[in-house]
Every structure is written in structure tokens, then in C-alpha cells.
């Protein structure tokens, strides 16, 4: 079965039971293939059921529902507005650019998927509306961006349309499973074993696969799923979640498992009776055969796949676009903030009848206590970016001290709600080891993986720090760059080794940091502090701290004092 045929089958299954399957993560760029798939999805969904789009900028009031202010004022009694989630009841909610979904929105969607209803406690209203819907997450993420894993885990399917040529994206006949195979008494246990072997930690995988197997049987008009339904469900649901691939079983592989594992059942049934391989092994085999060889290699190399399930991925990219967004309103003086007109009217609305008194006039009476100002999430949050020289010249123990200092600062930072990022430069370039975060657990994991050795591409490191600082600033934060190095650059920007060019490049990169107006601190980690590092600090307009014998505690104290 081709990837496109699989994708169409997934569309059919998701449309047949949106809430039961949870929905689909669709990895694809915008284009004709994705449009064709969405059209197939729409066709498969019964016409009466809604399919709605959720714009990324949607407000909580529109998403969840709340008080309909114009209608309330017109009617003279509270009128509720149904939110987008409740309007999508029974159907599918399409979320474009899901990789940029804010944590708040992701949590709302997850709650609706769990409860099948949307609870609203807003604007003086408390309601509970049914919202049994499925979610289609359109993932166009590149590089570090990823769809929140907590949300993905709730959706049965993940499909990847990026490699499907648009000519192939045509409607196909429904595949018809003629012989479902005998029903398996213990399909659940087999699914659990297969999930375990494939390295799937969450238990939602096998549960969703069991649901999909039953759904497959139901679509074919059968009562109970046969084992081909179960194997197919395992391939569709467990396959994309796999984080490792077990070795093929040596003795029982080619002749026995292959015909069973193939999705089209033509000859498999006959051989089952004699000596069938356990169901879970056939599931794994089906998953294995469905994965393209290149994909498998990437999977085994761990990390090549953009949507690699990894806890904690959700926090980093989502944190910055949230900044500067309105976060509701509070009572306040509009001279010290922006007037939230609607909220002010809403606060004033209930009092109109009381305030109007005898002289009936149609003017709205607003008192000072009604005034509301908009709150924004944009806090002046400091993000300390550590650019750590992990080259051979910066001795390895200094690296350990730098790690310690970062962790100490982080423990301070989490009291102040500040963030910390770490990037390391060594060998040929710089790499962000820890994207801006507040999570101590994640930081410790990132730092423990920090390797050392190689040349000193100081210019590349400073460039990367400047880039990260710009990103932080775009997100509404205040970056502080702390460079830990001995200042002995020996790898130039373009790559070749050479002290002179590397030094000049480093100075120009430092000037770039100064031009950006980023606050910088350079910590000279050399055993005998030298002039090169001092000149570098001057070039970036930052403070120079020679700390030849500093331990982690002293280093963090110095940084704290300087920032």
C-alpha cells in the first residue's frame, strides 16, 4: 500500500469517528497534495458534520465561548456565545500551523479531546457544551519547531505527505479487506507488546490502535476486528510513534511473517493455522515494512525525524510567540495601560439600569471603577544566554564549572522566573544545546550531553549568540550574553583553521553584538588571562571578568553581580 493510499485510509477513519480517533497530525507543506488530502477528508465526513478551521490568533473568548456583548446589551439579559470548539461538535477542527500553537491553546484542545465537552467558566457564565470533535493538526514545522507532544499523543494518526508527488494525489477506490482473518482473543496484549518493542512509552498508542482496529471492522460491516484489522491498525497508529525498531526475529522471519504482514491479505490465511508467528511480531513486521528504508535509518540514528517524540519539546518554541499578546483585562487606570473597551463596556453593562434612574436616556453610563486595561504577557523577562567555549583549548574541567554555574544560575532564575539558554561552540561551528528555558530538569539533561574538544570557532559562537539574542528580543525578552572562553580563536568564520583570520573574525562578530546593543559579559577562563580576551570584551562593549580559578559558585556569583 502506498503512502497516499494510507493517507486516504486515515482520512476515512478519522472522518468516520472524529472523537474516537482524536484526529490526525498531517506533516506537509501547503500545496496541492495537502489540499487533495483535506478534500478527501471533507468528502469522507458526512455532510451534516462541521469541519472548521482554527486561526492561530483566536482568542479564548471565541474558542471557548463567553458572553455575547452586543446581544447581551440589545436583549437586556445575558446571552452566551457558543465558542468554536462547541460549534465543531461531532466534526473536525483543522488547526493550520500547528507547530506554532501556544501552550494555552494546546491545553484547551487536549482538555476537549479528553472530556468530549468544553467547560466554560467565563464572564459570569458557567456552561458545559458537548464538543466531541477530532483535531487535524497541520504541521509545517521546520528545524526546531514541533507540534506539542502532549497533544499529538492524543491523536491516533500521524501522516507525512511531504514526499508524495502531486500527480499521485488522486482519489482512490476504498481498499477492501476481503478476509479479515480470525479474531484474536488477546489483541490488546499483543498491541501492548508491539508498542513496547517499538519503544512507545505512552499507553495511548495501544489503546488508540485497538480502537482503530474496531473501527476498521465496523467500517467493513463486521462485528469484531479480525487480526488483519489489528495488524493494519498497529501499522497506522503504532508505526509513526515508534522510537526504535527491534531486530528481526532470526528464526521465524521471511517465509512465515511476510505474507501475513503484507496489508493485502491474499494467501496469508492458509498458513496461519499451522504455526503462526505471535500477533505482536507480525505487527512489528508490518510497521517495519511500511517504513521506507531511508526513514528507518533516520529513526535508528535517532533525531533525524522532525517530529521525534521527545518530552519537553513543546515549551521552547511556544514560549516566545506568546509574548506581547493580550491576556485578558483587569480593572485599572487607562492612563497606565491600554483601555480594553469591550471589557469596560462589559463591566458597565449590568449597572446601566441601576444607574439610569429616573431621567431615562440612552447614554451608557461608565464609572471609573468600570474601566479595564488590557494586560499583556510580555514581561521584561531576562534570558541569560551562555556561549560556552567547548573546544580543546578550554580545558574540560572548565567546561564542568561552566555547566555548574549555569545550573546554579538557573536555580536562581526559576525563582525570578527568568530563562537560561546555552550554546556551545567547538570544532567547526556552534550549536544551541539548550533553547531558552526555565525548566531545570530539561536544562540538566541538555548540559549533561555537552561534549568537548576540537578547535575554537569563536566567531561562529558569537554569531550564534547574537542570533539567539535577537530571537529572544523578538519574543519580548531581554537577552544577556555571557561568553565563557579563553579568547584563543583558531577557526575562522568560513571554516579554515588559522589564528589570524579567526581572531579578526571574532572581533568583527563581537562588534556585531555591540551593534545590537546586547548586554554582554566575557568570562576569561584561561589559566593565565591574556589580552586577546580583554580586547574581545571591549569589542563587544561588555564587561570583562578574568576568572582563572573560579569554581561554579564563584562564577555564578560574578555573573549575578554583573547582570
Amino acid at each position, binding site marked *: 500500500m502506498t503512502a497516499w493510499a494510507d493517507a486516504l485510509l486515515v482520512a476515512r477513519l478519522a*472522518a468516520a*469517528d472524529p*472523537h*474516537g480517533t*482524536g484526529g490526525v497530525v498531517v506533516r506537509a507543506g501547503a500545496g496541492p497534495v495537502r489540499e487533495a488530502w483535506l478534500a478527501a477528508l471533507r468528502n469522507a465526513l458526512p455532510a*451534516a*458534520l462541521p469541519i472548521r478551521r482554527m486561526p492561530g490568533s483566536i482568542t*479564548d473568548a471565541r474558542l471557548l465561548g463567553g458572553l455575547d456583548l452586543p446581544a447581551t446589551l440589545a436583549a437586556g*439579559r*445575558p*446571552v*452566551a456565545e*457558543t465558542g468554536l470548539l*462547541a460549534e465543531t*461538535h*461531532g466534526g473536525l477542527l483543522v488547526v493550520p500551523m500547528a507547530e506554532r500553537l501556544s*501552550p*494555552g491553546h494546546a491545553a484547551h484542545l487536549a*482538555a476537549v479531546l*479528553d472530556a468530549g*465537552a468544553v*467547560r*466554560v*467558566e*467565563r*464572564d*459570569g*457564565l*458557567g456552561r*458545559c457544551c*458537548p464538543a*466531541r470533535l477530532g483535531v487535524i493538526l497541520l504541521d509545517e514545522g521546520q528545524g526546531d519547531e514541533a507540534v506539542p507532544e502532549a497533544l499529538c*499523543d492524543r491523536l491516533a494518526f500521524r501522516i507525512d505527505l511531504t514526499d508524495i508527488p502531486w500527480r499521485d494525489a488522486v482519489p482512490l477506490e476504498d481498499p477492501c479487506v476481503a478476509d479479515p482473518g480470525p479474531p484474536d482473543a488477546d489483541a*490488546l*496484549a499483543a*498491541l*501492548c*507488546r508491539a508498542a*513496547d518493542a517499538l519503544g512507545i*512509552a505512552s*499507553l495511548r498508542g*495501544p*489503546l488508540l490502535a*485497538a*480502537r482503530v482496529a474496531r473501527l476498521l471492522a*465496523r*467500517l467493513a460491516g463486521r462485528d469484531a476486528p479480525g487480526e488483519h484489522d489489528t495488524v493494519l491498525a498497529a501499522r497506522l497508529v503504532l508505526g509513526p510513534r515508534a522510537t526504535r525498531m527491534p531486530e528481526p526475529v532470526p528464526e521465524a522471519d521471511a517465509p512465515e511473517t511476510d505474507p501475513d504482514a503484507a496489508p493485502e491479505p491474499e494467501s496469508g490465511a492458509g498458513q496461519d493455522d499451522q504455526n503462526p508467528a505471535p500477533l505482536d511480531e507480525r505487527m512489528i513486521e508490518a510497521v517495519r515494512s511500511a517504513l521506507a528504508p531511508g526513514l528507518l535509518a533516520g529513526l535508528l540514528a535517532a533525531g533525524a525525524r522532525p517530529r521525534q517524540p521527545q518530552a*519537553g519539546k*513543546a*515549551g521552547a518554541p511556544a514560549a516566545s510567540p506568546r509574548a506581547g499578546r493580550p491576556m*485578558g483585562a483587569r480593572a485599572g487606570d487607562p492612563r497606565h495601560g491600554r483601555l480594553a473597551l469591550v471589557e469596560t463596556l462589559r463591566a458597565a453593562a*449590568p449597572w446601566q439600569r*441601576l444607574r439610569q434612574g429616573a431621567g431615562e436616556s440612552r447614554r451608557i453610563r461608565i464609572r471609573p471603577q468600570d474601566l479595564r486595561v488590557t494586560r499583556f504577557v510580555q514581561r521584561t523577562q531576562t534570558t541569560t544566554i551562555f556561549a560556552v567555549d567547548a573546544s580543546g583549548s578550554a580545558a574540560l574541567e572548565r567546561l564542568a564549572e561552566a555547566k*555548574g554555574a549555569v545550573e*546554579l544560575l538557573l536555580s536562581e532564575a526559576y525563582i525570578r522566573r527568568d530563562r537560561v539558554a546555552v550554546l556551545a561552540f567547538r570544532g567547526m561551528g556552534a550549536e544551541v544545546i539548550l533553547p531558552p528555558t526555565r*525548566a*531545570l*530538569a*530539561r536544562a*540538566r539533561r541538555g548540559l549533561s550531553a555537552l561534549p568537548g574538544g576540537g578547535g575554537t570557532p569563536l566567531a561562529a559562537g558569537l554569531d550564534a549568540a547574537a542570533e539567539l539574542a535577537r530571537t529572544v528580543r523578538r519574543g519580548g525578552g531581554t537577552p544577556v550574553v555571557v561568553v565563557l572562553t579563553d579568547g584563543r580563536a583558531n577557526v575562522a568564520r568560513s571554516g579554515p583553521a588559522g589564528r589570524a583570520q579567526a581572531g579578526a573574525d571574532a572581533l568583527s562578530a563581537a562588534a556585531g553584538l555591540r551593534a545590537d546593543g546586547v548586554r554582554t559579559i566575557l568570562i576569561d577562563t584561561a589559566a593565565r588571562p591574556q589580552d586577546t580576551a580583554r580586547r574581545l570584551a571591549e569589542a563587544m562593549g561588555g564587561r570583562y571578568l578574568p576568572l582563572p580559578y573560579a569554581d561554579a559558585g564563584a562564577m555564578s556569583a560574578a555573573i549575578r553581580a554583573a547582570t
Partner: protein
Amino acid sequence: MIVNGSTRAMSREPARVPPLAPEADAIRAPGRTTVPRPDAEPHPAPPTFPFSAIVGQDEMRQALLIAAVDPSVGGVLVFGDRGTGKSTAIRGLAALLPPMRAVAGCPYACDPARPGDLCHRCRDHAGGLETHTVPVPVVDLPLGATEDRVVGALDLERALTQGQKAFEPGLLARANRGFLYIDEVNLLDDHLVDLLLDVAASGVNTVEREGLSIRHPARFVLVGSGNPEEGELRPQLLDRFGLAVEVTTPTDLPTRIDVVRRRDAYERDPAAFRAAYAEADRAIRDTLTQARAHLPSLTVPDATLEAAARLCLALGTDGLRGELTLMRTARALAALEGAETVGLDHLARIAPASLRHRLRRNPLDESGSTARVTRAVAEVLAP
């Protein structure tokens, strides 16, 4: 251990594809609906997964039972990924709790047995109070809830239609004498969290807004959940919770199969599944009832008190809250187990849950806080 998604059971009629709730037609028409009267039951209790059917997660179950025996231990904070059955466990526990007597018609479900805690309405009530039995409330604080709904606010309907100033109780009023569950505490607005903690600590909700000035009882067990990967909670917030437990997805295969199998059985036939575990649930309820009755008569010997103090000293926990919670939780645990006295053993077993979130961070100490508590317990309580 269970997986969320109880409502996502497949429809079992093969003919109807896809499944649709009967009320779907009313809702599908987009637009506006008039708000139902507030006295209508706004949140029908969803069917619950039996508490006794939860596989594993012993620490979380024990912590919830302790909070149910003695609500004064403070709230329970559950760390772990979403979908490890936190909310299911709380609902399951509330469903098996013995129903409570409450003043009929009181929005705060006042306890007639505790005249000191009555709300202003019940106190001013002349003559005897009419009472009825109600289930223990479990109130979900949904994400995106606004402050006015949490603390209570002006009754919009009455203000608009009759021009009257009346107080409409919020979620805190509904949670009185029950549980308030907050999923993803770390996503909640800071000012809401502060407000909740303040009310949880004092047991009284004070409303001063929109020209209203109201105080009403709001004693509830705060149960919060969070994922440490998505950012840490402030230490002053952590400290307010009585117990902190960690839940994880089980890793051994037989347990995993058991979890999935029970969940699947429940989704296929909730009624039969609940019936199968009714007996086990009843046994837990009996244990709870006995423990509550037993609790006031349990005294904590001086040796245990001294050991608790030494333990907190060794761990360097700030303030007295750690000691107090340690003593209360150990007593509740002893009551649950029907013990005659609160021994060092109870202390040792409950110490990780009641102290692990109160430790000063030492980022250079790789071992987690649980290991540090265990080490301290081994050192201090060694014979």
C-alpha cells in the same frame, strides 16, 4: 494507572457511523443560546472509572486517600505527564466517598454539624436548618476560567433583568467541603494561583468586587497537576501543597497490558465494569470511614514528633509547614491503616511525599529530591 479519554469510547452500534450524541443537532447550529438559569444543574457528573480499578500509582492513590481522611494536610500536587490518570483518580475517589450532609438550598453546602463554619445565610436562618445528603463535590477549574467565575461575582442575569445587586457564587463556593482540581497548574495565570492558594490556606473566600462584599466558607482539598518539563512552579507555591507525588507511565509489560485491558473493558461497557469493582470500592469506602472516625483519637507520641523535627532539620526545609504536614500526614496514614499509634515507620513512609517539594534546590546534586529525603530518613530514623 489509567489513560484519560473516558468519553472517547467507540459507539457500539455498528450501523451508525459516526457516533453522535443526541443533543448534537441542537448544538450544531452555530450562534447564540440563552444562558440556562443558574439553579439548573450545570455540570452533570460524568460516569467515573472506579478508584479501585486503577493499576499501580500507589503513591498517588495513597496521597489522595490521606487528603480525604484529613483535609487539613493541605492539597496534593501531582507531577507527571497528562493522561496518567490523575483526573480519573480524583473523580473515582470522590465517587466512592461517603456522601455528606449539607444544608438544603445552601450554595456552599454548609455542614450543619459545624455551626462555626456556616455561611452568612445559614447563620441568619431562623429556626432549624433543613438538611439533605449530597455527594462530595469535585470541581474542575477549567483552563481559561476568568477570575469572576472562580471567586464569584455579580449575578449578571439578575442585574440585567431586574436591576438587582446579587452575588452569584463561583467555583470556590461549589468546591466547599470537596475537591478542587486544577490541571496544568503551571499554565494558570499567576494572580489566579495566588488567589486560590490564599483561599485554600484560610478556608474562607473573601469577595470584594463590583460593590459586593461577601465572605463565605471555602474549605477544599486543592489537587493540582503539572508537568515539570514545561517549567517549574514557584517555590512559595510548591510549599503550599501538603503532599507532592510523581506519576509515571508504567514500564513493565504485564502492568501495561493490565492498564490497557481495564481501560478498554471500561470503554466497552462502563456499567458492567463499575459493577465488577463495586465491592472493592466499597471496601475502600469502609476503610476511609473508619479512618476518619479513628483519626481524632490518634495521638502522636513525643518520639515521633521529635523524629519529624530532626528529619526536617536534616533536610533544611524552610518554616514549620513541613513538620506540621509530616506529622498530620503520618497520623492520617496511621488512621488509614488502623494503627494504634503513629510510629516511626509511618513517618518514614510518608516523608518523601510530604517533604520532597520543600527542599532547597541544589542544582549540583544530581540525585533527585526523593533520593535526598530517603537518604535523610535512613540517617535520622536509624535505630
